């Protein structure tokens, strides 16, 4: 017997129709992307919505546009589509690897970028963490128009976007940063990572760090930047700096969440090693 109640579902073919349906449904309507989080609502003792508006058949939401200046990712692009599209974008290696390594192949074919950003109370989102490190922006639309938010502003507001609004795309500016994504699942793959560190670094002509953006996911409830470490690394030579050693006394900026796969203290404890691995991946990518 199905554990689900019987919500309605609308499957529009255009973004305008989807926004009109969501506007009409108001608080009774929820967008549905790949379904891999929403379909587990009963297991989390969460109620299903009265009605879902499925976004998977809207062609413009599945497009990924890549230019020399930026990458625009439609919110209904799946993890698998994103990993494949970024095959040659080495500056966005963090996002490519986040998309290619999360969950398992079947989930990566279903779960979408927008879903990863919008899943409520999902504490281990690889894509959201990578996009935070890449300083991406998020386009949110409703029937009246659209607006762009920084990833930080979006993460602070998600869950409170209000009815009728959906993420339509994510924009990543290509600013000459190198990037890398480091994650620690307890098995080699297939489970939720204990911690995620995603970095984007810009160097000067002497290979000193001009800017380091370091995003941490899965440690606390929502991904956030490790600003104390970012500041400490500014000006350091990338080839010689011992990132893990600088990170160690700054890990206490995080308060780890307890979970079935790991206690909170362990999530914090592994951060210096993970950030060290991410920087090592950056360095090796540069040679």
């Amino acid at each position, binding site marked *: *017997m*199905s*554990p*689900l109640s*019987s*919500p*309605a*579902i609308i*499957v529009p073919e255009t973004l305008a129709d989807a926004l009109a349906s969501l506007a009409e449904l108001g608080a009774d309507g929820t967008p*549905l992307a*790949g*379904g*891999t989080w929403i*379909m*587990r609502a009963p*297991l989390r003792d969460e109620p*299903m919505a009265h009605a*879902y508006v*499925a976004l*998977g058949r809207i062609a413009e939401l599945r497009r990924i546009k890549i230019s020399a200046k930026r990458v625009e990712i439609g919110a209904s692009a799946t993890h698998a589509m994103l990993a494949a599209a970024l095959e040659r974008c080495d500056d966005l290696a963090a996002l490519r690897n986040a998309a290619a390594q999360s*969950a*398992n*192949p*079947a*989930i990566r*074919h*279903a779960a979408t970028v927008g879903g990863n950003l919008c899943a409520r109370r999902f504490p281990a989102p690889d894509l959201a963490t990578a996009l935070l490190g890449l300083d991406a922006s998020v386009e949110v639309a409703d029937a009246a128009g659209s607006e762009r938010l920084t990833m930080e502003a979006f993460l602070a507001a998600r869950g409170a976007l209000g009815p009728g609004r959906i993420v339509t795309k994510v924009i990543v500016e290509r600013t000459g940063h190198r990037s890398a994504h480091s994650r620690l699942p307890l098995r080699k*793959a*297939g*489970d939720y990572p204990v911690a995620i560190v995603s970095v984007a670094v810009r160097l000067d002509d002497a290979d000193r760090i001009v800017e380091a953006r370091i995003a941490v996911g899965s440690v606390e409830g929502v991904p956030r930047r490790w600003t104390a470490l970012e500041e400490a690394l500014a000006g350091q030579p990338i080839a010689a700096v011992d990132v893990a050693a600088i990170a160690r006394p700054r890990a206490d900026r995080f308060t780890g969440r307890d979970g079935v796969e790991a206690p909170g203290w362990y999530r914090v404890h592994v951060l210096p090693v993970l950030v060290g691995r991410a920087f090592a991946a950056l360095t090796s990518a540069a040679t």
Partner: protein
Amino acid sequence: MTIRLTLNGEEREFAAPPMTPLIDVLRDDCHLTGAKPVCREGFCGACMVLVDGIPTVSCLTPIALVEGGKVETVEGLTSADTPPPVQAALEAHDAVQCGMCFPGMVVSLTHLTQPGECDASRAAIKAGLTGHVCRCTGYERIVDAALAVMEGRQ
């Protein structure tokens, strides 16, 4: 809401509530019990079916989202006389396990062993089988069988 799809080559119509997981329609309405609802979280792979040729966790797939699609369950992955290559290789390598996780593995391996889907290496096959969990035996002979199919040895 009537949902139409092709199931193991047959056109079918379903009147199930649209958010019903595909696995429940397959098992309860069609009595196709090869796919198993084990974790219902997308972690174990026991519910794997092919939707338009792609391995799909049927426990997390609302039936409405496969409207117009082509669904193949393990029961549909047959041929008239001899078993398909993957199934023959699994038998030849003595890799057949109990019916809990194994039908899902057969479904994913059927996709994975198509030309161009996966490198013919143990590491790539294991990465491709991520999300299939067996709690009673092991995986190595399954990987042997997949490798044999990919290398044309079976």
